[in-house]
Structure formats: structure tokens, C-alpha cells
């Protein structure tokens, strides 16, 4: 009986959390409209969220592309189709790996930092202090971070895919001897801008919204103690990774028929 009650409590808490997160998102979105006049705040956050994530994205993208080149070559050469290596590398990166791996890395690198920062601001009562000075912390602190995340994520995903393709070319053409012309021409004839590249960008925008939203919400809602902040950071990474993978499945099912 007791466990049943706890289950009910858990469900109610989850639904309530979802509702709070949605209302919070609306509040931040309406606060974001006033950012046009304070765009320097967004630029500052794009630096923290985007530029500082750049290195890990570029290195991971390069290695993912190179591994795709090696593995794809091994399998494709069995069927005498090693010329299609470029197509394989580009399609897997542009459609799936680019947006998804970038979003996972983004959640780990930028999302956790956002949560910890906002959580600490709350724990040290900086947010309350702002309210005392009649500064709305949602507009001043949260909204620029959300907008910066939404701007940065597609750019990071595009960089990941682009450098991944170059990595695949490095291994495929440079190391394994696939013909350079065939590599690029098969890629160009098989990858469609509207269906593959654009859908990948849409995916990464959605991931950017979701990951940053989860991160700022967890930070804003965290229990203002050191343990609370650490738990909130943990939850950000877990929730946003799960959300990214689940959303990716849904979007892939809708986009690519």
C-alpha cells in the first residue's frame, strides 16, 4: 500500500515538474524578447556556451569521422562498394551523428556548466539579490543563456559534421586509397540539401532548445545547497541525454521515410 502511494506521489511530482518546466520556458521566452536591446549579454553567453565547447566538438568530430571512414571501408570493400565511402560518412554524420553526438557533448560540457552556475547563483543568493534591486533574474540571467544555447547548438553540429567529413576523407582517401573524385561525387549525388542537411539542422536546433532548457531549469530549481547543486548538475546531464536520444528517434521516424 505504501509503495503504491509512493508511485502515485512520484507520478504526480513528475507531472508537476513538467508543468513547472513548461511555465518556466514560457516565462523565459517572454523575457527573451527584451534581449534585443541587451544583445551583449547573449554574446557573452555564446562565448561561454559555444566557443568554449568548440575544442571538444572539433576533436570528437574529427575522430568520429575517421572511425566512420575506417569501419565503413572495411564493410563496404567486402561488397566492392568502397567508392560509396564518402556517401556513407556524410549521410551518417549529417543525419544522425552530427546533431546527436554534438547534443550529448553539449549537455556534458555546456549544460552541466550552466546548471552549476545558475545553481550556485541561487545558493549564494545572487538571484534573490537581483530581485531586491528590481532586476528580473529570468530576463537578466536565464534568457541570455537559453538564447545562446539555441544559437550555438546548430553551429556546433554543423562544425562537427563538416570536420567529420574531412576526417573521413583523411582516412578514406589519404590512408585507404579510395579515389578522391568518387568519394566526393558519390557524396554529392547522394546527400540532398533539403532532406538531409536541412533536417540535420532542424534536429540540432531542437536539441539546442531542449538541452539548454533542461539545464537552466534544473539550475533555477536546484535546492540551494552544495549537494543540491551537484544533484541538479547530475540530473541535467542524465535528463538531457535521454531527451536527446528519445527525440532523435521520433524526429528520424518523422523526417526520413
Amino acid at each position: 500500500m505504501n509503495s503504491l502511494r509512493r508511485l502515485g506521489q512520484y507520478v504526480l511530482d513528475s507531472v508537476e515538474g513538467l508543468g513547472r518546466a513548461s511555465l518556466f520556458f514560457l516565462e523565459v521566452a517572454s523575457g527573451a524578447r527584451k534581449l534585443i536591446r541587451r544583445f551583449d549579454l547573449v554574446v557573452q553567453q555564446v562565448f561561454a556556451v559555444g566557443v568554449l565547447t568548440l575544442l571538444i566538438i572539433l576533436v570528437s568530430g574529427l575522430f568520429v569521422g575517421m572511425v566512420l571512414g575506417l569501419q565503413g571501408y572495411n564493410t563496404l570493400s567486402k561488397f566492392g562498394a568502397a567508392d560509396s565511402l564518402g556517401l556513407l560518412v556524410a549521410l551518417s554524420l549529417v543525419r544522425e551523428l552530427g546533431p546527436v553526438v554534438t547534443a550529448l557533448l553539449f549537455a556534458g560540457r555546456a549544460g552541466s556548466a550552466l546548471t552549476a552556475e545558475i545553481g550556485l547563483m541561487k545558493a549564494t543568493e545572487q538571484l534573490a539579490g537581483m530581485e531586491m534591486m528590481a532586476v528580473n533574474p529570468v530576463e537578466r540571467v536565464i534568457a541570455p543563456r537559453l538564447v545562446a544555447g539555441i544559437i550555438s547548438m546548430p553551429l556546433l553540429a554543423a562544425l562537427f559534421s563538416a570536420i567529420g567529413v574531412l576526417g573521413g576523407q583523411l582516412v578514406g582517401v589519404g590512408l585507404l586509397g579510395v579515389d578522391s573524385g568518387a568519394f566526393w561525387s558519390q557524396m554529392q549525388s547522394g546527400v540532398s540539401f533539403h532532406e538531409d542537411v536541412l533536417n540535420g539542422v532542424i534536429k540540432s536546433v531542437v536539441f539546442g532548445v531542449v538541452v539548454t532548457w533542461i539545464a537552466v531549469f534544473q539550475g533555477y530549481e536546484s535546492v540551494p545547497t552544495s549537494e543540491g547543486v551537484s544533484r541538479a548538475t547530475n540530473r541535467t546531464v542524465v535528463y538531457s541525454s535521454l531527451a536527446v536520444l528519445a527525440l532523435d528517434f521520433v524526429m528520424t521516424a518523422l523526417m526520413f521515410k
Partner: protein
Amino acid sequence: MIQRRQLELWVGVFVAAGLLALAMLAFRVGNLAAGAVTNGYSVQAEFNDIGGLKVRAPVTLAGVRIGRVSSISIDPSNYEAVVTMELDGRYNNIPVDTSASILTAGLLGEQYIGLDPGGSSQYLKNGGRIQVTQSALVLEKIISQFLFNVASKPGAEKK
């Protein structure tokens, strides 16, 4: 704390690099440069059976790609497949008695439309119709026809 100017510079570099990567994906990886049909025109053709032809499949003339299949539908009056193709505006001198056939790249490859130019002095215009068509070869039909021929040959039963 990092200098404000330097920070803005880095953000600018980041945004520019991201947009550059996007442009590379569009033009170098994707087919935006090749797929942009300049003032193209569309023609239609009806086929009995299109086999595995798909939208965006290439349309070729003498092996050179001059367009793409833009849509495939069914003509409800005679149950034939209506294939609409978008041809490049540079090739606007294709005779009206051109024939279209559905071919396969390689043995099991992708299917595409091959155009065979006729001799008429009138040219296909936007919304025109290709009259002479040849359907796709469906492997199962060929095999069953072949087996039927073998079985119906006199003396096939005794071995």
C-alpha cells in the same frame, strides 16, 4: 576576466566558422550547387510500371544528367503511373517525339529515366508530355516469363 573585445572577436570567429561549415555541408557535401535547376521546365510521361523509380531520381540524356524526377502519381482514369520530371532550362531543345525509358544503373542499382531523342523539329515545352515510354524491367516478371517459355517448349518434360 577575458577582455570584452577579445570575447566578441572569439564569438565572431565561432559564428563565422559555424556558418562556413554549414555552407560547406550545403555546397560541398550536399547537392545544392548541382541541384539548383536554373529556370527549369517540367514534362510528364506515363508508364505502365515504374518499378522502383523514386522521386529525385536522375533523368539522363545520352548518359548526362539533365534533370530530376519531381513527382510520381497515378492517373486514375487508366491506372498508369504519371511521372513528372524537372528538366534543366539549358536543354530546351528536346524533340516532342523523344522516348523515355526507365533504366537501372548497374545490375541492382538505382533506377533512373533515360531519354532517347527523336527527330521532330518541334521541342518539348513546359507542361509537355512524352508519348513514347518504356516501363521498368521487373526482375520477377522476366524470370517468370523465362520459366514459362522453358516449360512450354516441346520436349521440356522428358529429360
